[in-house]
């Protein structure tokens, strides 16, 4: 993953999608590792504004209109908000 990306327009505020296609947050902030060849290098994506999850750059498979992860949301403790509400509906018919 050394292809340059415009961090402000091409990464920040993008949808995060796990390896099974589940939407699990937005890229709320970035943690930079430093500057290489005059370009900032991303170390982590910060997802969630409260209870922020740190997603290591190694977990990112590709970036297009969304940030696609190599792993499932649960492995990184992403998507907990949806997980918390799901049981409320699970017992209802036709859910």
């Amino acid at each position, binding site marked *: 993953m050394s292809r340059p990306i415009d961090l402000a327009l091409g990464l920040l*505020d993008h*949808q995060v999608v796990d390896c099974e296609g589940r939407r699990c947050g937005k890229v709320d902030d970035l943690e930079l590792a430093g500057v290489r060849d005059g370009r900032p290098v991303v170390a982590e994506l910060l997802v969630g504004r409260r209870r922020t999850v740190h997603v290591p750059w190694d977990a990112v498979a590709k970036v297009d209109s969304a940030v696609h992860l190599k792993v499932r949301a649960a492995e990184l403790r992403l998507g907990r*908000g949806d997980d918390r509400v799901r049981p409320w509906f699970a017992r209802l018919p*036709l859910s």
Partner: protein
Amino acid sequence: MGDLVFNAAAGAVFGYQLLWVVVVGVVGIITYSEMCGRVAAVSKRAVFDAVRERLGYKVGLVALVAAQIVNLMTLAAEVGGVAVVLRLLSGLPYRALIVLGVVVLVLVIWALPFEYLERIFGYVGLCLIVFAVAAVKLNPDWGAVARGFVPSAETGDLLLYCYFAVGLLGAAMTPYEVYFYSSGAVEEGWTPSDLRTNKANAIIGYGLGGFLSFALMISAGALLLPHGITPDFLGTVALMAQSPLGEIGLFLALIGMLFAVGGAALDVAFSGAYSLAQFFGWEWGKYRQPTGAPRFTLTWLVLFGLAGLVILTGVDPILVTEFSVIFSAVALPLTYVPILLVANDRAYMGSYANGKLGNVFGVVYLFVILVIAVAAVPLLLLTNLGQG
């Protein structure tokens, strides 16, 4: 509700003079929807994905809050409309029908797959075509109707004329329609090969809406204006079909209104849930089971509950409709501008970015939207809520 209320009221007060505004509004919503559909097909982003990316979290949050307030007002208006029509059909107490209406809508949306909902509300809502038959039967002065398509204002009350013009534009271009439309396009996995369908959908769908708007305004101009009646009640709108067509006309008008307004309630509630989910990155989708998109489902349920409570306070649904339309005109630039930016951005859109013609329309409508956004609230106050 916005279209029913503003078209009938504009016809009752100004006859056919404001027909041209409906044309401007319909071309506007076609332009805007086509752009949103194209952005969805090419870049896989729904409206509030684009809003969040382009405006960032803080400014985007302002757009989100504004959209949610307008959505809630609009949903309250639709829920109130459903209850009013149910009362006209059944004669049962209004408040009980508000609760019944909300409960039935929620249960139906919960239980039926979206494909069925779309067809039931869409096809039965087509009963509204009865207003086109009524318009013809009322034998309007077709020369005057034709002159209505040319902008002119023969009135002593220019402010009221402008208020109705803004209301008609706001009702024709309500933003929830494009949130819903673009989210559907993303969910159905549109690609650039669907762009012809996108264009056809926008033109036919909103064109039909425009046709019904003409019918309502012409009926009101032919029937209500000569009698000096203003449609302060939804029942008056239905009477426009009864007068020339009898009981069957009244019945078709009420059934058409019930399903069109009920369908709009569904669209508005989902639009609110789409915006919130897309802004915060939650799972969403109208084809998903409730457990597949839990917070999305929770959002539309809560919105229905809140809208029901607003209407249970006893506020007049017609008044809520007018407010919702005027405030949606105010909030329109907050979603239109980011979409215009994205639709122009070749990094997102490649060769599918707006062409010259698209940009001419885009910029002209940007101007229209900015003018009505600025003028909406002053006109609301100056005309004393359109009472003149």
